[in-house]
């Protein structure tokens, strides 16, 4: 027969395993914690895919911005395209106040441009190189992924997957409020 301490060891092991399984079931795999959150945004430099205007982490310092990674091959990117455009129209008209930046990756210029035309994107759009220089620097898993960067150049929030209207409102309001407080 089992002795009392042997019973408790078995019970403890079963409880531990059950707790781990339960934790795994209740954790949203899309809420991937990025080591970049709270840290300075990785250095990047890209060119607008239509005008060739350069932009990068250095030139954006002082302006809060939303950095969205997308691809014409990405189905979820279609769903959030109108939200990003709406955010640009609402807050991004003054590029010194706020910017929406979209970087397509693993894509061709023609496909990315066609996608942008189809979904009426008018904000800043660039294409990462074939080596994935920018996406590897940002530790990307897939598309869409969005980073919210504050006016000091620090990553404040990262979203894996399509954004919602509420998330954009919440994060952009927070970034703008902090930027307006700056001395």
């Amino acid at each position: 027969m089992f002795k009392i301490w042997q019973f408790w060891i078995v019970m403890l092991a079963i409880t531990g395993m059950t707790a781990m399984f339960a934790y795994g079931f209740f954790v949203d795999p899309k809420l991937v914690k990025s080591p970049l959150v709270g840290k300075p945004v990785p250095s990047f430099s890209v060119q607008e895919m239509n005008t060739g205007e350069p932009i990068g982490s250095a030139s954006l310092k002082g302006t809060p911005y939303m950095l969205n990674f997308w691809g014409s091959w990405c189905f979820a990117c279609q769903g959030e395209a109108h939200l990003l455009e709406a955010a640009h129209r609402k807050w991004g008209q003054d590029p010194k106040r706020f910017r929406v930046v979209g970087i397509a990756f693993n894509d061709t210029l023609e496909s990315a441009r066609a996608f942008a035309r189809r979904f009426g994107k008018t904000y800043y759009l660039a294409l990462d190189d074939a080596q994935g220089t920018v996406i590897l620097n940002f530790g990307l898993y897939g598309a869409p992924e969005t980073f919210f960067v504050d006016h000091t150049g620090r990553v404040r929030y990262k979203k894996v997957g399509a954004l919602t209207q509420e998330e954009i409102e919440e994060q952009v309001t927070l970034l703008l409020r902090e930027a307006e407080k700056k001395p």
Partner: protein
Amino acid sequence: MRRGLETGAPAGRLSGFPWWKTARRIALGMAAASVLLAALTAGQAWGLSEDEIEQKSLLIAGQLRCPTCQGVSVKDSNAPLARQIHDKVRRMVAEGQSGEAIRAFFVSRYGEWILRAPKKEGLGLVLWLLPGLALLVSAGLIGYRLLGNHRQRMAAPPEPIPTLTDAQRARIASDVKTFEEQD
């Protein structure tokens, strides 16, 4: 104080012998040798052959998890992101970066998750030790149980052979007699 013409060296017994020029030549020679040595050392680090670069990058790619796959290393995956990571590893190796620096780069972007084997420190050390510890405890428990049973058997007095009662003996004798009579 009178100084030697042109040279600015202290005048006197040594003013005719430009000892400081010799010192300067020695210093310049040493500096040149240091630069040459540094260049040669760097050349050794970067001067890896194509095979060595490939071998080292394969080793490191095998230690990194493919971000878009299930339980597959970057080395074993054909996913576009895994190929880009592998190429980046190869470029970093060719630039002379150490395996530690390359792993640190990917950890800073993706978190500890990107490493297929957890670090042997902090919580990672617990993960390394736990299976061995569980095995030891289980083996100990089983051994303890078996030893306990063995001791119990050895210590217990032999079970007495049950003896027949008079009634049973009489019954057997009667049955035997019946069978003999039937024959």
